Structure formats: structure tokens, C-alpha cells
């Protein structure tokens, strides 16, 4: 039941309707009880017993909402907080339907227990989304996450549009109906005469009123409504205000807790050297130099790593530096950036064929490098192993799966592992399922030191050199124009991975195709903010721009003319152009570039405005983004995600490149894998085109259009076409 077929089947059997079976399906997948997050108290004991017989005593109305007698609404969030503000937005969605007074609302991250597996919720979305995905190849994020059924994952820009839309809203609405029903019963009046607002239920005719807190216990004993009515958007209040994020006060005074901040009595610290070539093994290490150093408790040798455990991290790190471990290269010692791109080149072969009768043929080749996530917080995992039980403290984008990884690493049943997840110091995909090497290593090191708790802190060098990288990729494009400069065809062949969403172009062009060519390499890959859209957005929107220039047309007007059948794309493109005053004169050496991409259900058009000095010095002056993600839940936070995505993409486009030499990563830290600073940051202006389209994601969609908008702007400013990222590899000096 973990595949898309089962999600589709679920859809056919009517799970989209909030049927009673859907609500209280006793935790079975077929019944989908947990899909809505409101099933709560009728769950059979066992797997989904979190909300049990004592729910009424606790005033626990639904799985995710608790109302205590002091009238505090506590909302459990089955997603991690890694900077995106999800907990606040999700709580707003529940509170809106609940008719809660926002000042009484609190949030906390759900514990890492099966009952909170938000994969169920993604499947609820999947039931709606997946057929459309397969039909059009868009919204791959939800599709992929549907496969990760049963995980408590935060990724794919799905939290608000899946958990929020299908879980939180329904949970809030159901809870409200139960509170109203409890009040009506107490006052012996009709439910229809009572109304909820501001965390109170009121009977207008008699003037009787009771707080949610006063009603909570009675409400919890009532049956869960089978189909609570959701509010129409024109009645939204909480969702129409930009609500300050609940986590921000703790993030300005140093009290916010990340995995690195956890501490436990008797805790030891580990510093780690991992085989520099992925897949390599530890062949030998003389531990004596470290053994003799102050504070060192043990040198732990693992299959692929060596760790020094000491009474402080600095001492552990100093002792590790005294070791000279020898690692194998897994047979990949001959691999380099050049060898990988040579293989890409051969796999792609000649440029794609285009119609021979074209008036003009355009060809281009693009390259995108490997990239690291480089989250601000290096990877950290603390673990304590005692017999066949363990506790783990870490920061991950999927605590349930991480718990399984820890259990497997230690060799104990998963039920014997308790995992506490902390705030993430950035995620960007690094903390997603299948990327839990830091949990695996941390658990094994702690097992060797049992029963002492051990905090394994990765250095920045560990982090940069042992990432799950954004894949390098290459593309050859060919396009054909007719005598009037209208595009007849755009074809591409690419390596590095792709999918329907990433290669999708909204334009009305006679013939298009994008063919993937396989060229295997041993570099470890993972999802990096916006996944494959980051490479393909650059390829396809650069090439469309090159087509426009070949046609002698304005790049904005060229695109606009091809979007007649795509009103949402057209509106976003026009909005971004208007925001940027597209077409108005600029100083010499300045230029504007435009690009538009859809990813994760959200359409984003961006215009970059750059200035290039005669010496080739690039200044990104401003970026304008027009975003259609359907409705917007928390506008200021939504803007922050677009702003952040743009800066993240800008840093990568300008500066970032992971090189491979002798099978290993060359870069080590922020000196050779630099990031932009405040001095380099452009102004970012974001506008939302609120539409009635299904909610789209926001964490990632700001990223893909940035690189093409930027290189298109550089071309407009200088006539130099950058076809290889990062941009710093290309001289922008006037010829």
C-alpha cells in the first residue's frame, strides 16, 4: 500500500469525501482514518493508540488539537521547523476553522511516534493530486512524498498544502463542531442557534456563553463529526493577517534549541573522519597518538570512519587531527569533475534534431555543477544506548525514518528507540529520508560508548565533504524558428536526472521533447531545495531566452505570446514584468532578465535586474517575483520563503561549485565553498497573485527561476551568454 496505485485506489473508493469511515478508520490504510488527522479517540489500541481512552480526561479533541480548561488551544504539528515557519501557518489553518482566539493558540512539534506519520496526509493529497501529476508531469513533490508513506517528513513544499489543507483545517472544523454541540447540549438548545468565535461558543438568543476551555471535556466525549463544514475563503480572518511567527522570539534571544544545543549529564563528544571517497572503507589507523591526549576516552573505528570520543568536542577534534587514518577509495579514485562531464558529453552525444525546413536553428549547451546544502548548522546527533534501548536527539526532516535508521544502526527494535527532534538550523533537503548518515554514525559511535550519551558533531569540513549533493547535470538544446521568428520546436537531451515537472514548459510550441541520457557516477546525490527544477529551470528558461534573441524579439513578449493557453503563467509573467518596469530604459551596463517556472504546484515568474561594470564586476540590483500558489496562508512568512529561495539560488548561481578530484570532494568549508553576504544581496520584491487554484508549495518554488533570470539579465546587460554555472566561471569583462 505504499505506491501510487494504492493512493489512486483510495481516491476511487471515496476517501476524498470526509466520510465517517475516513474519519474513524481505526488507523487502517484502507479506511484512511488517520488521513484527516481528526480521527482521535476511536482508534483501536496498538499502532495508532496515541489518542486513547483518556482523551476525554485530557480534553483532547482530535489527534492534533488539545484544548485545556484554561482555554489554551495546543496544536501539535507533525512537521519539523527548519526556517520555513510551517508550525505557525499550520496552526493558523486549524485555528481559522476552529474559530479560536489566536492569542490562546500554542504549537508544538508532534512527538516522533507512528500516530503522527504525516505520510498518511500526503496520501490524502496524493489521492487528489497524483492522477493530475501523471497526466501533466507537474507537482512531482507530492507524488514522491506519497511514496514515502508512513514517514513524518517535511519536504517537497507540502506541509501547508497537504497537512494544512487536508489535516489541520478538517481537524479545526471538526473540533469546533464538537464544541458547539457540547454547548448546545449543555444549554438544551439547537446547535444551529449557537455560534463559535474568539474561542467561545455563544447562544445569541439567551446570551449564554462558554469558553472552549469550559466546553472541552464535554466536547471530547461527543462523536466526531463525519463531515465538518470548512469556511469559505471570504470568511477567513486569521489567514488574512500576516501573523508573526511563533518561533521568532526564541530565535533572537538564544533560547531556541537545535540538536547541537542538547546536553545530558555525563555526555561525551565525538569528532569524526569519514572515508573521503564515498563508499570507501577504513583500512587502518594507529590510534595511539589520540589515545594519549587529554580528555580522550576512546578511538572508535567504524567500517567507513574513525571517531575520537572525548570529554569536550574541541579535545575530540584536536585528537582526531593527530590521527592518520588510511581509507580505501572504493575503486573511484579516478573520478573527477572532468571525467563526469566527459561521460555526460558522450551520453548526450549530438544536439537533438530539429526540423530541416526551419528558417533558423538555435543550439546551446548548458552545465550545472554539484552543490552542497551547507545548512548553517552542521549535522549533529546525540545518542545514548543502554542494553536494547536507545535515546536519540537530533535534527531531521523526518524523525520517524531517522528513528528507524538509529534502530538499525544499533541493532535493536525500532520501538525501543526514543527520538527527540530539535529545530533544524536549515534543511534545504539535507535532512530528508535516506540522508541520515549522521544519525547512523552517531548511533553507532554511541553504541561503542554505551551507556554514555555521545554527541557527534560534524565539522563544516565533514558537512561539505560528505553531503548528498545536488547533482551535476548537462543539457544540449536545439530549437527551430520560422521566418517570422515563431518557435517551431524545442528539443533537449540531458543527463543528471529529470522528471515531467522539471522539464515542463508552459509554452505553445509545435514540438517539444526532453530526453534523459544516463551517465552513472559514484557521487552521492540527494534532494536540494527545488530538486531537479534547479538544473532544468536554468536549462529551459535560458534556452527560451536564446530563442527569443535569435528571433529578434523581446524575451518577455516572446514568452507572453506563447502563453495564451496558460492564463496563470501569463498573469504571473506579466505581473513580474510590470513590477520590474520591464521595457523602461536602464543605464548602460545594466539589464533585466526574466524567467518563469512551475514547481511544487506554484508558478513563479522572476525578473532580475543586474549591473555589470566594464571590468566585469556583477552587481545584482533587484529581483522581482510574482507568485501564484493559489491562496496564501500567512503572507509575510510566504514572502520570506520566496525571498529566502531567491537568495539561496543566487548564492549558488553566482558562487557555488563542488569539484571532484580523485573521487573525493575538493571543497572543505566556507572559504572555498563561499556564500553571498548582505553586501551582495539584492532587494527582493514579492507579489502574490491569489487564485482559487489548489494551494502550491512555497519553500522551494522561488529557487528555479532565479538562475535563468540572472543569466538572461547578464546577457541583456553585456551580450555575454552564461551557459555554465556558477556564473563566476565566466568572465563578464567587456570584450
Amino acid at each position, binding site marked *: 500500500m505504499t505506491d501510487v496505485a494504492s493512493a489512486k485506489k483510495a481516491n476511487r473508493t471515496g476517501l476524498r469525501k470526509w466520510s465517517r469511515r475516513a474519519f474513524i478508520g481505526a488507523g487502517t490504510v484502507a479506511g484512511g482514518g488517520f488521513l484527516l488527522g481528526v480521527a482521535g479517540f476511536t482508534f483501536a489500541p496498538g499502532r495508532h493508540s496515541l489518542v486513547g481512552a483518556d482523551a476525554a480526561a485530557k480534553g483532547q479533541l482530535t489527534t492534533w488539537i488539545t484544548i485545556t480548561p484554561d482555554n489554551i488551544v495546543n496544536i501539535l504539528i507533525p512537521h519539523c521547523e*527548519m526556517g520555513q515557519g510551517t508550525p505557525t501557518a499550520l496552526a493558523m489553518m486549524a485555528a481559522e476553522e476552529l474559530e479560536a482566539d489566536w492569542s490562546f493558540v500554542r504549537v508544538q512539534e508532534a512527538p516522533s511516534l507512528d500516530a503522527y506519520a504525516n505520510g498518511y496526509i500526503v496520501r490524502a493529497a496524493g489521492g487528489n493530486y497524483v492522477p493530475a501529476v501523471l497526466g501533466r508531469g507537474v507537482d512531482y513533490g507530492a507524488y514522491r512524498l506519497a511514496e514515502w508513506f508512513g514517514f513524518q517528513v517535511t519536504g517537497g513544499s507540502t506541509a501547508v498544502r497537504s497537512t494544512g489543507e487536508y489535516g489541520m483545517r478538517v481537524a479545526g472544523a471538526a473540533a469546533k463542531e464538537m464544541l458547539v454541540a457540547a454547548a448546545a447540549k449543555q444549554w438544551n438548545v439547537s446547535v444551529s442557534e449557537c455560534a463559535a468565535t474568539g474561542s467561545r461558543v455563544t447562544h445569541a438568543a439567551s446570551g449564554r456563553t462558554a469558553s472552549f476551555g469550559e466546553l472541552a471535556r464535554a466536547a471530547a466525549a461527543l462523536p466526531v463529526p463525519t463531515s465538518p463544514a470548512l469556511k469559505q475563503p471570504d470568511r477567513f480572518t486569521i489567514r488574512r493577517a500576516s501573523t508573526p511567527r511563533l518561533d521568532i*522570539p526564541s*530565535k533572537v*534571544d538564544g533560547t531556541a534549541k537545535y540538536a547541537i544545543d542538547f546536553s545530558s549529564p555525563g555526555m561525551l563528544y565525538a569528532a569524526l573522519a569519514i572515508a573521503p571517497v564515498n563508499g570507501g572503507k577504513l583500512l587502518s589507523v594507529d590510534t595511539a597518538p589520540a589515545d594519549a591526549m587529554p580528555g580522550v576516552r576512546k578511538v572508535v573505528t567504524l567500517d567507513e570512519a574513525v571517531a575520537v570520543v572525548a570529554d569536550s568536542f574541541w579535545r575530540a577534534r584536536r585528537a582526531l587531527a593527530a590521527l592518520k587514518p588510511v581509507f580505501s577509495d572504493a575503486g573511484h579514485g579516478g573520478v573527477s569533475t572532468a571525467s563526469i562531464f566527459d561521460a555526460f558529453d558522450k551520453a548526450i552525444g549530438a544536439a537533438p534534431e530539429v526540423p530541416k525546413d526551419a528558417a533558423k536553428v538555435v543550439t546551446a549547451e548548458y552545465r550545472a555543477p554539484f552543490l552542497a546544502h551547507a545548512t548553517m548548522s552542521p549535522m549533529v546527533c546525540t545518542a545514548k544506548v543502554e542494553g536494547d534501548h536507545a535515546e536519540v536527539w537530533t535534527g531531521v526532516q523526518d524523525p520517524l525514518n531517522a528513528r528507524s535508521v538509529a534502530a538499525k544502526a544499533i541493532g535493536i527494535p525500532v520501538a525501543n528507540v526514543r527520538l527527540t527532534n530539535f529545530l533544524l538550523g536549515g534543511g*534545504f533537503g539535507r535532512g530528508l529520508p535516506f540522508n541520515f548518515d549522521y544519525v547512523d554514525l552517531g548511533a553507532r559511535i554511541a553504541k561503542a560508548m554505551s551507556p554514555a550519551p555521545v554527541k557527534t558533531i560534524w565539522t563544516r569540513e565533514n558537512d561539505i565533504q560528505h553531503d548528498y549533493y545536488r547533482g551535476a547535470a548537462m543539457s544540449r538544446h536545439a530549437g527551430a524558428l520560422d521566418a517570422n521568428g515563431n518557435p517551431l520546436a524545442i528539443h533537449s537531451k540531458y543527463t543528471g536526472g529529470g522528471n515531467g515537472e522539471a522539464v515542463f514548459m508552459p509554452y505553445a510550441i509545435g514540438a517539444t521533447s526532453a530526453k534523459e541520457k544516463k551517465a552513472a557516477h559514484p557521487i552521492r546525490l540527494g534532494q536540494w531545495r527545488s530538486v531537479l527544477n534547479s538544473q532544468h529551470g536554468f536549462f529551459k528558461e535560458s534556452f527560451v531566452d536564446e530563442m527569443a534573441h535569435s528571433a529578434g524579439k523581446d524575451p518577455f513578449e516572446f514568452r507572453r505570446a506563447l502563453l495564451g493557453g496558460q492564463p496563470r503563467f501569463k498573469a504571473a509573467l506579466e505581473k513580474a514584468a510590470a513590477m520590474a518596469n520591464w521595457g523602461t530604459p536602464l543605464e548602460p551596463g545594466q539589464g533585466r532578465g526574466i524567467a518563469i517556472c512551475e514547481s511544487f504546484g506554484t508558478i513563479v515568474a522572476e525578473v532580475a535586474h543586474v549591473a555589470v561594470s566594464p571590468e566585469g564586476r556583477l552587481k545584482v540590483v533587484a529581483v522581482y517575483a510574482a507568485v501564484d500558489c493559489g491562496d496564501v496562508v500567512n503572507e*509575510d512568512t510566504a514572502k520570506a520563503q520566496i525571498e529566502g529561495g531567491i537568495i539561496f539560488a543566487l548564492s549558488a548561481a553566482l558562487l557555488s561549485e563542488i569539484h571532484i578530484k580523485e573521487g573525493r570532494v575538493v571543497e572543505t568549508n566556507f572559504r572555498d565553498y563561499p556564500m553571498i553576504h548582505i553586501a551582495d544581496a539584492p532587494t527582493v520584491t514579492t507579489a502574490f497573485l491569489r487564485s482559487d487554484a489548489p494551494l502550491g508549495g512555497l519553500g522551494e518554488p522561488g529557487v528555479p527561476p532565479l538562475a535563468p533570470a540572472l543569466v538572461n539579465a547578464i546577457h541583456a546587460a553585456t551580450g555575454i551568454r552564461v551557459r555554465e554555472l556558477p556564473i563566476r566561471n565566466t568572465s563578464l569583462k567587456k570584450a
Partner: protein
Amino acid sequence: MAIMMTVNGEAHTLDVEPEMPLLWAIRETLGLTGTKFGCGISACGACTVHLDGRAVRSCTLPVSAANGKNVTTIEGLAPNGALHRVQQAWIKHQVPQCGYCQPGVIMAVAGLLAQIPNPTDSEIDAGVTNICRCGTFARMRAAIHEAAGASEVTHD
């Protein structure tokens, strides 16, 4: 060697190696975890604290350099649970996303404003060189101007 220093107004004597970076003395020996480890080479600024009122990057500064001096961390930036004007501006402009770099940024900005009460944009560019992977720079700039009382800049 015993290191004597005042941290957030409180005198401490630490029994640590003099070459241990101040960062780890603050975090592990004193248990003040608001100051973050980001790179270990003074490149990102997540570890920024004040040494006798000046912003310094503590991940490469030996603890011995703080001997006999006053150290202020994010926990002590504003005494008695109050918020420093930079912290207030940070909340008003909703600057943090993941938040990991922000204690260091706030300490760098507070240090800058102590030296230059009303910095220009280029003085901000030169004075605040912290890395923020969430990309909150435009909001930082607006919040810095706000804290400096220079203008009614908004992040729009």
C-alpha cells in the same frame, strides 16, 4: 591554566586549556548554547560574541584571549530578560527563518551599532559579513536601520 573572565556580568574561573577556542568554553564549559558553531574558521560569524564590547568570532579566538576580560553572549545582550533594540527590530521585521545564524548576526549588528550608531548601507555591508543560508539579508538591513533609528525602512 585557569582562565578568569566575566561572562554576561558574572565572574567565572575556567579550568580549560588556554588554546581552546572561546566558543567551546562558552558552549560546553559554561553551558551557554545561544552562541553557535558554524564553520570553525571565522568565516560565517555564527559564533560572534562581544569581547569588552567589540564583536569577535569566538570559534578561532583562544579562550586565553578572554582572560581578564568581559564577554557578552546573546543571552546577556540585554539584561534581565529585556530585549536589546536590535532584537526588537529583528522581531518587528520577522528576520529569522531557521534562526541558527541569528544570535551571531545580532551580536555583530549590536557591535556595529556600538561603533557606528547610524550606519550607512555601505557601512552595514562592511560591518556585517555573517553568512545566513536562509537568505534573510534584506530583512536584516531593514531591521538594522530600524534599530539605528535611521529611517522607517520596511522589508517590502
